[in-house]
Structure formats: C-alpha cells, structure tokens
C-alpha cells in the first residue's frame, strides 16, 4: 500500500509539473476528440501482434479521458513446437483512463492512468505420436491496469500517433527477484498508428 501511495504521488507530481509548464499552446495541436487506430507489439521479443484503438476526449485542454481497446494475437511465431500445437491464442484488453495532456509546437503528449480488464483465450494440444493427445484450454478475465503514454505529432486532421502502455497488474510483485515481474515486463505494449481528429 505504501508503494502504491508513492506511485500515485509520482504520477500527481508528473501531472502537476507538466501542466504548469504549458503557458503558450499552439491551437493547431489542441484536439478535443480523436480516434487513433494502430498496430503494435508486446516486448516479449515481439512475438505478439496487436491491433489497437485509442479514443481520447479532452473536455479541457489539459484534462484527458480515454478508452483503449486492444486485440492481441499472441505468440504468432511459435504455433507448433516440440509436438505442442497452439490451436489459438489471443487476448482482448479494454481499458478506460484519465490523465493530462501537454503540448509543444507540433505535438502533444498525454499521460494516462488506465484501468479495465483483459480476456485471454488459448488452447494447446500435445500431439506427440508416442503419447496420448491432450488438449488444454484456458479462458478467463483478469484485471488490467497501468500507465499509458500517448504521443501525437502533426498539425492536420490526420496525424501520427505513438503510445506505450506499462501494465501494473499483477500487483504487488509476487516474488523475491526482479525477474518475477516477467508477466508485466513481457506485456508492455508499443504501438504506432494514424490518428484522426474528430473535433
């Protein structure tokens, strides 16, 4: 709980500091409502392929609300190894968040605290000819929360967008070794896309 407090203090500090530095904002980079489809990978050696979308609404210049959806095809390069076949392996994440946006001449930066859920589904089958075939299916929902950074570059209606998401679930880290955050570390998302200014 102490750690969580430190984390929120750090985020609050981040938000206050960045917001206070924004005195002259070029109006062209201020967008009220955007849709930003993109593609991405997780940092588990790039074996997951992500189709994502961010919808961001700024009721004020600096206050941001967002919805992030991600469909992930997981482990796409290792679908049949050592007689273990992956029948399917995907996950869907839906998160909502709030944060702040700050601006430079041709770009904007948004930091968001996100919370939502993740649905995971995968099935593996052992088909070793010397053993009886066995399949295992795992489907389930889990919480998903973390920090998202979104970068938008461009002054026109269409713009370039980049974002990254650091998951903080499972929390706290269950273990005595930094390697034990492998689940979080391998699920860091890096995404690129084209944004569309709606309003």
């Amino acid at each position, binding site marked *: 709980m102490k*750690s*969580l407090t*430190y*984390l929120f203090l*750090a*985020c609050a500090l*981040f938000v206050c*500091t*960045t917001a206070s*530095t924004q005195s002259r904002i070029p109006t062209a980079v201020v967008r009220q409502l955007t849709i930003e489809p993109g593609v991405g990978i997780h940092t588990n050696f790039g074996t997951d392929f992500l189709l994502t979308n961010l919808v961001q609404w700024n009721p004020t210049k600096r206050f941001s609300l967002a919805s992030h959806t991600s469909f992930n095809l*997981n*482990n796409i390069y*290792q*679908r049949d*190894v*050592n*007689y*273990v*076949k*992956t029948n399917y*392996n995907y996950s869907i994440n839906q998160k909502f968040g709030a944060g702040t946006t*700050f601006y*430079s001449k041709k770009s904007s*930066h948004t*930091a968001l605290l996100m919370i939502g859920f993740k649905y*995971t589904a*995968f099935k*593996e*089958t*052992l088909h*070793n000819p*010397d*053993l*009886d075939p*066995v*399949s*295992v299916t*795992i489907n*389930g929902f*889990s919480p998903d929360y973390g*920090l998202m*950074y979104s970068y938008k570059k461009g002054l026109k209606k269409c713009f370039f967008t980049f974002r990254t998401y*650091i998951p*903080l*679930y*499972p929390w*706290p*880290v*269950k*273990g*005595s*070794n*930094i*390697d*034990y*955050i*492998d*689940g*979080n570390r*391998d699920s860091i998302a890096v995404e690129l896309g084209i944004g569309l200014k709606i309003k």
Partner: protein
Amino acid sequence: MTVILGIIVMALVLSVLLSSCEEEIFNPALTRTFTIESPSIGVTYPIQVALPENYNTSGEKFSTIYVLDGDQDFDLVANTCKSLSDRYGAPNVIVVSIGYGRDRSIDYTPTKTGSSTGGAPEFLEFITSELIPKIEQDYNVETTRESRTILGHSYGGLFGAYAFAVNNSVFGNYIMLSPSLWFDDEVSMILEKQNRVDNKDVSQLVFMGIGEAENTGKMQAPFEAYYQILHDNYSDMSLSKNREDDLSHMGSKDPNIVKGLNYYFQNR
C-alpha cells in the same frame, strides 16, 4: 523537459516495483554452508543446509528437501518450511540447497540437444552417490526414500520429472514447478512411459504447479498431459496441481513453491 520528466516517472515506477521485491533471509545461526566437489563431473557445488530450530535438542531424525536453483530459492524454501511446520505442528525438515556448479541448463536437462544441455544423468548420479550420502552422514536425517523430496522450477522441474522416471528409488516426493516437459520432444514423458511398470505401484507424492499466463506455446499442454498420466496410472500417489491465476513463468514460481510445500506438509 518532457523527456526528463518521462524518465523520472518511469524510474519511479521501476523503483516502486523493485521495492516490492524484498527477500527474507533465513536465520544464519541455523544455516550451514559447504562446498562439495564432484569427481565424476569435475565441478564444485555450493551447498546450504537449513536446520530446524530444535535440531540440536530434539534428537529426532528429519526429512530432507533438496532444492534445485538453490542460490535463488534457499531462503524462501527454508522460511516457508519453518512457518508451515509451526502452523501445522508438524516436524520441520532439513532443507538442502544445491547451488550452481555449472550451467543449470546442462545439469537439469536429460538429453543433449546442444552444447549446453544433457547433463542430468551425471547430475542425478552426483546427488545420489555423493551429496545424499554426505548429508546423511553429517546430519540427523532420515535415510529412506519417503523422507526425501526434490523441488525444482522450469528446467529444475524437468529434472524432477527425469529423476521420477529413471531413478524413482532416490526421492519419494516431487515438487515440480513450471516443468519444462516440452524439452526434446517430451523426452521426460517418454522416459516415464518406459519406466511406468517399475514405478506405478510405489507410494509417492507429486505436486505440480504452473502459471496460468504461461502461454508461450509449449508449457500448458505437456503439463496437463503429465498430470493426466500420473492421475490415471499411479494408484498409490498423492497428486495435486495448481495454476496460479494471471501469473507467468517466473512470477508464479514463489507462490507455487509455497503451495507445493504446503501440500507436502499436509500430505506427507
């Protein structure tokens, strides 16, 4: 300015995550350390031994738990055994941690698929013929198969499955966590099948643990298949499995160690 602030926030997040990773050291007064050189392998292994608090006063003989990857897991296993012993009012055990002498991927894998695999046969021989005799000579421990447990994670779990199949007379209890049963086309499962007739009527305890989020395409199906094989063919076995919700290969390790030891203390 933006980049600097971003770095500061990331650093803070990382420091918060790291601050959660605190490890409790096992009581040094009850810890013995020594090295043992294996003439057959030509490697020296660091060994740590955790003694029960009543070791010197009780006069009883204790069961043993041999821990692979001992450099990482000794403190957790020793502390957990103490707390479980207290909780259940059960006799504590002597924890024997086997540290790294050479690459773990050599020692823990049963067959040679590359330059750094395939040393399990000689490593098992080292444990059987060199380490266990020394422990049983130097400490007040039980000398029966039923009193010995082996605990391993990943390749260590694979080594447990290998020992179970090819020399079932050494250990009576197996705690296999996220075992790499996929290794070399499930060779450890083939070995189990080949030796099943000799092993299936022997009393033994097996706990298998894995992380639910281990979806790298090779962990879950062999894990489930191995569990089904043990369940269907070993009538005199105390068998349990656990999937840790939402945790991955390394993240599930410590929770599964605790649950595996819990199962052992309740069912041995």
